[in-house]
Structure formats: structure tokens, C-alpha cells
């Protein structure tokens, strides 16, 4: 592992820690509206200024990062596990099952996920708490985002299924579970880890897209998505550069993920 990659991991860990301890670093509660100080420039009291409702922007950024950084990996884990189960099992069993799984994967890949998310959100009870709404959003992202990874996992497992060492193990009477856990899983592991790391920034960005549409994480909870909505007012960006903070932090985190991922790919 290179020094640069270590540095990326340390930086990402630091960002995670700061986000996790948002309540320690945030100057104010994220939902508190200081209505007399709407759109305030950065000061000691408001290091990144206030938003259009007078809420401290730094506090919202820290809490928003916490939500996105905790839930995006959780959604990525869910989608990777689903990809491993569906893609791996289909390819391992082979035959009709493999073809059926292929069809299901293609079906999921062709789903207009945005409309599906809109529909599911519309079907949810209206009075669910904001936190539940966040959990549901990310759970949906995880439950719908496994198909692309499953296709890669299936292709890998298909190759492994016919590999000489697997055939030899099978010929020597190795039971299926042991074959799966001892011989195949260690070889699929790097693919799964890579898929996990790819999914994390993808889900962060997907949530950001939903936030830009006014969906996803609901008010007053902050997330990177709804913080980025301030960039819609791009006329103000030139004379209020602190509005870039959510975008810059998102770019930094996604880049760090990508940097770490490139190392994983190299390893795999």
C-alpha cells in the first residue's frame, strides 16, 4: 500500500470522525433558525454563514456529512451483499437459475429507479419521522442498486466455477458449502470489496441528486443532497464563495473513496 493511499485513508477517517462527532464541533443545532440572521456572511458565530432560513451552515454541513457518510456505506453494504447472494448463487448453481437471475438483473438495470423511488416515497405514510424517511431512502438505494454489481459477481463466479482448482476440489469430494466458503469466496472477495467502495460514493451522489429534486432526506434533517440545493442560486456563488463548501467537501470525500478504490482494484 502506497503512502498516498494511506494518507487518503487517514484523511477519510478524519472526515468520518469529525462527522460522527458533529454535535461536538457544530456551533448550533442544525435545525435552529436564526431568522434575524438570514443569509448571513461567515462570522465567528457562524463560520460558514447561515442559510436562507438563518440556520448555521457549518452545523448543517457536519450533520449532513454524518448522515450521508453513515448511511451511504450501509446502503453500499446492503447492495453488495444482495449482489453477492443473487449474482453469486445464480452463477454457482448455473443452468436455468443462472438464466433466470440474468433476466432479473437486466430487469433491475432497466428500471427507472428515480420514478420507482418517487413512487415508493409517495406510498409511504406521510407522518413518518424524518429519520425513518432517511433510513428508508438509503435502504431503497441499497435494495435497488445491487444489479450492476451482481452482474460482475456472476461473471466472476461463472469463471471460478469452471476453474481447474474448483473442478479438482469437487472431484476430490469437497462438499458444496466448503467449496463455496473456502475456495470460491476468497477469490470473489476482492470483487465484492471493490464493488462496495464503488457503491459508497455512488449512493452519496444519488442521495445528492434526490436532494436536488427536493426528495430524499426531508427537512429539517440536513444531507449533502439538500445542502447542495443552495448551489441552484448560482448567481450568488461568485460573491458568496462559502456556498461552495458542501460541494467541495463532497468532491473531496468522493475523490478519497476513488483514490482508495484504485488501490483496491490494483490489489485485486
Amino acid at each position, binding site marked *: 500500500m502506497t503512502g498516498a493511499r494511506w494518507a487518503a485513508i487517514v484523511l477519510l477517517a478524519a472526515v468520518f470522525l469529525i462527522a460522527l462527532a458533529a454535535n461536538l464541533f457544530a456551533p448550533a443545532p442544525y*435545525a435552529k*433558525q436564526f*431568522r434575524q440572521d*438570514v443569509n448571513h456572511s461567515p462570522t465567528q458565530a457562524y463560520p460558514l454563514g447561515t442559510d*436562507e*432560513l*438563518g440556520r448555521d451552515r457549518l452545523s448543517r454541513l457536519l450533520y449532513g456529512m454524518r448522515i450521508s457518510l453513515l448511511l451511504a456505506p450501509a446502503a453500499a453494504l446492503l447492495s453488495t451483499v444482495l449482489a453477492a447472494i443473487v449474482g453469486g448463487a445464480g452463477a454457482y448453481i448455473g443452468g436455468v437459475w443462472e438464466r433466470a437471475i440474468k433476466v432479473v438483473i437486466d430487469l433491475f438495470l432497466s428500471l427507472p429507479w428515480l420514478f420507482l423511488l*418517487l413512487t415508493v*416515497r*409517495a406510498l409511504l405514510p*406521510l*407522518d*413518518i*419521522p*424524518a429519520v425513518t424517511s432517511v433510513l428508508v431512502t438509503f435502504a431503497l438505494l441499497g435494495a435497488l442498486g445491487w444489479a450492476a454489481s451482481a452482474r460482475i459477481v456472476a461473471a466472476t463466479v461463472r469463471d471460478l466455477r469452471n476453474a481447474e482448482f474448483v473442478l479438482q476440489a469437487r472431484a476430490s469430494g469437497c462438499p458444496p458449502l466448503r467449496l463455496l466458503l473456502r475456495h470460491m469466496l476468497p477469490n470473489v472477495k476482492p470483487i465484492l470489496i471493490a464493488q462496495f467502495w464503488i457503491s459508497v460514493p455512488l449512493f452519496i451522489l444519488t442521495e445528492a441528486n434526490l436532494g436536488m*429534486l*427536493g*426528495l430524499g432526506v*426531508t*427537512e*429539517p434533517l440536513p444531507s449533502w443532497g439538500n445542502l447542495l*440545493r443552495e448551489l*441552484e*442560486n*448560482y*448567481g*450568488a456563488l461568485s460573491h458568496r464563495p462559502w456556498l461552495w463548501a458542501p460541494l467541495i467537501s463532497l468532491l473531496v470525500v468522493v475523490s478519497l473513496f476513488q483514490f482508495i478504490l484504485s488501490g483496491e482494484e490494483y490489489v485485486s
Partner: protein
Amino acid sequence: MRSGDRVIGASGEVRMCVSIFTCTLLILSMVLFCGCNRSVQNGGELRVTIKSDPKTFNPLMAEDDSSDIVRYLTGGVLIRVNRKTQENDPELATHWTIDENGRRITLNLRPGVKFSDSTDFTADDVVATLKAALDPSLHSPKGDPLRAGGAATIQAQGKDKVSIEFERPIAGIERLFDEIAISPARMAGKADSSVVLGPFSVGEQKAGEYVLLKRNPQYWRKDNSGRQLPYLNAIRLYVLSNRDTELIRFRQGDVQLINGLSPDLYEQLHSEDASAARDLGPSVESEQLWFNEVPRSPLPEHKKAWFRSRNFRRAISMAINRADLARVAFRGHAIPSVGMVSSANRIWFATNLKPPSYDLNAALELLKQDGFHKDGDVLKDKTGNPVAFSLITNAGNKQREQMGSLIQQDLQQIGIKLSFVPLDFPSIAERITKTYDYDACMLGLTNVDLDPNGQANVWLSSADLHQWNPAQKTPATPWEAEIDKYMNEQASTLDRDKRKAAFDRVQEIAADQEPMLYLVDKNALVAVSPKVKNADPVVLTPQTYWNIEYLSLRE
């Protein structure tokens, strides 16, 4: 000689001075004359935007905003509602009389008027157009309000007079003619705005790009100096749905007028060019929320009881800081709403009403009367249910979403937990019109028709848009019955004072019961390029080009 020479020389200098002075005067007069001419000269192409392609050029079928703009700019009407004075102005009808029981209107037509194809305008054209508008098989949205009068007999009385007799009287019938563009008799019902009586006709359309309106050389109106109107040669209506792009093109000089700027875009423009951005004050667009009072809704009984309580509704209303909504969400470009009629409606606004006061203690007192009580920070009803409800609105409307967050914090102060849920519009429509599965909803409303009859589709208990409890067979509450009574009363008399008194009473009942919590009246924000001469924007649509005939472009 020297002296004589000097004398001669002096007189020569004087003559020269006089000549120079005369020449200067002549040149100045010519320059001024040319300048005056140039200021109102014909020519130039005004460029504005529409949000989408017009769905139709048939003025009787115009329903969407874009089609309606084309109708306004091309259509010649019998009577025009003056967007500035809000009074009825004679147009193709020079004067009119309404008989005693209000069932018949007789219109005297302007003589010597020609269509844009140089054919004469006659009473037959009016008869044919009105018959088409009233034809039930055409389903003309412009004819709908006229059909409220039942079967009509339309007759030409000579070349310059038309009478229309309805089964039932229609109060404020003159205003309805503002919507009906007269077409040639041969094209009635299937007109395409190419042969018109208005200042412009449809010249060219490129789907998804623009609609070009060309000047009508036969337009009947002249300015005070006898000059033929309109001044402009053409209007190009760019199809542009993105408001940010619209502002960019305005800055580049490619678009010269913008109607309905958002507060954000207004502020942006104002910071760059204060003279181009204009805040015209309160418009007829309001934002309001209502509670679901539909008896068959799937809500739990305790919630239904809250929402049906006048005290509960008034308490919520008093707990909302409307001044903050206007100042924060609309950046000061809105005012706290008084009620169902905006103060921009000069004729029908009940001036004795005031916006609900923001008073948390009074709100809690009202709630106490209904058995609500605070348990720590949580407000509970008399059976111990914590007071929590959801508020839906359409996702993507920034001001509405901000209002939701502000109301959320306001209600938190009296112990109410509000879940604010922006949804896509089809989901909202499904909930508020079919399933009734919602607690409260916040949307906007524009009173396009200033007349009280324009609000009948909301305030009559039988109306489909009576949102809190639509399409009632009989009024569900005594106060709704009372509103029905006064709405029908104002609709059945032609006496304006009596109508005003009845409609004032409707506004008072609505303000007392608050089935709709009117939040803010939005200001009309527009952009006017300094290149546009004679611009006199008003709060009513089409705000910046209501006086299109008189607009001209500076070079």
C-alpha cells in the same frame, strides 16, 4: 474706410451669426423631430418567453398559459378588463347596455374595423364567435362561464349591434368578454389566430423554439397623435421553461421583458441593475394551507375532530408567523395574507379585514378551549393524543419548501410536531382529490378572474375545488351554508354595491372560520429592459406587456 469696413464687417458678422443661429435652430429642430419620431417609430421585434409551446392557436380553446398569452396578444375582444384600472374598457364594443333583469346584454360595435386580412368586421362575426363559444360540443374553456347563464339567444341587430339573451342573469357578464377573441364568421370555432382583430397575428411557429407574432396592419386603434398602433413590428415568443436561462438571456439583451420572477432571481437582477428589476407590490397570487375535513377520509377520528374545530384552525393560523414567511421565504417580496381576496383586487377586497395576528399565547388559549393541553413540550388533545400532523406540498418549489420549514419551527413552539413532506405533484393530486389520505396541504392559488364569481368554484360547498371538503351534497356546516347563500346572492344581482356587501360577508365568514389558512400574497416581480419604451407593468397578467400596442423599442 477702415471704420466703414469695420461697420460693414460688423454687419457681416451679425449676418453670419444670424445665419449660424438659424442653421443651428434648423438642425436642432430636425434632430428633435427625428428624435421624437424615433421614440415611437414602428419597427423592432420584442422578445419575451413562454414556458412551453402553445397547445392551440384557437383563442376559444386556449387553456394553458402559453396559448392564453398568444390569445391576449392577437385577439380582438369586445370589452377589455383594463389591467391597470381593473375597470371594463370598450374595445370592439364602443358601449353596451344590460337590461333590468340582467339576462340580456346589447353591444354596439365599433364601426370601420377590419380583420388583419382586410375583411370587414361585422355583427355576424360576433354572433358566429359567441355561438361557437357557447357550443357544448366544442367544450370551449372560454365559453364555460357564459354557459352558466343557460341557453342563450344571440342575434345581430343590423351590422353594428348584437344582443345576447340568457336564461338566467350572469353578474359581471361584461368581464367575460375579455376572454373571447372575435374571429371571422367563416373561421368561428376553428380559428388559428392568423386572421385577427388584435394588434398581432400568428406569423410563424417553430416547435420547441419560438412563436413569431407579426404586426396587424389593419389594427383599429390609434395613439393620441393619430398614429397607427401597435408600434412594434413583431413579437418573438421564445419557448423556454428554465427561469435561470430566461434571466441569462435577459442580461444578454436577447429577451426584453420577464413576468413572474422568483424572489431569488429578482434579487440577483436587482443587485446588478436596479432599474430593470421591478417589484410591483402584492399580486393576486397567494399561498395557503388547508386541513383535510373530508368525512370519508381515512384519517383517525381524533384528527378529524381537530381539523373540524374552528378553534384548532384559528390557533394554528395564529401560531404561524406570516411576517417571517414573507420576509424569509420571499425575501420581503410578499405580504401577510388577509384572506381569500388579495389587496391587489381593488374592487372586491374587503378593506375592513386584517391579517391574522401572530400570537402564540392566544393560540394556546384557543386550543385550551377545545381541551388541548401542554404535557412538557408536547401538546396533547383532551384524550391524550399528542398533536402531530403532516403537511404536504409539491416538491421542487423552493419558497413553499422554505415556508414548510418555517411553519414547522413555528408550530414546534406550541408543542405541535409537524412532518413536512414535499411530494411529486401527481401524488398530491391523488391524495387531495381521490384518496383524501392527507392531514394538511399547502399550495398556491392565482385568482385570474377578479370577479367574485371566479371564486365560486372554491367557495360553494358543492364545488369540486372546495378543497377542505369538496363536492358536498348539502353544506356540512352552518357557516358553509351561509357562504353558499351570500355567494349565490352576489351572483344573482347586478347592483355592484349589493354584490360587494354580499361578497364582503363571504370574506368575513372565511376569515372567521379559516377553512383555508391564507399565508402570504406574493408580490408581482418583473424585469423590464431599458430598451423597452412605454412599459408600465401591472400586477395582473400579462404583467409587463398588458399594453402591448404602446410598447416600442429604443434603438
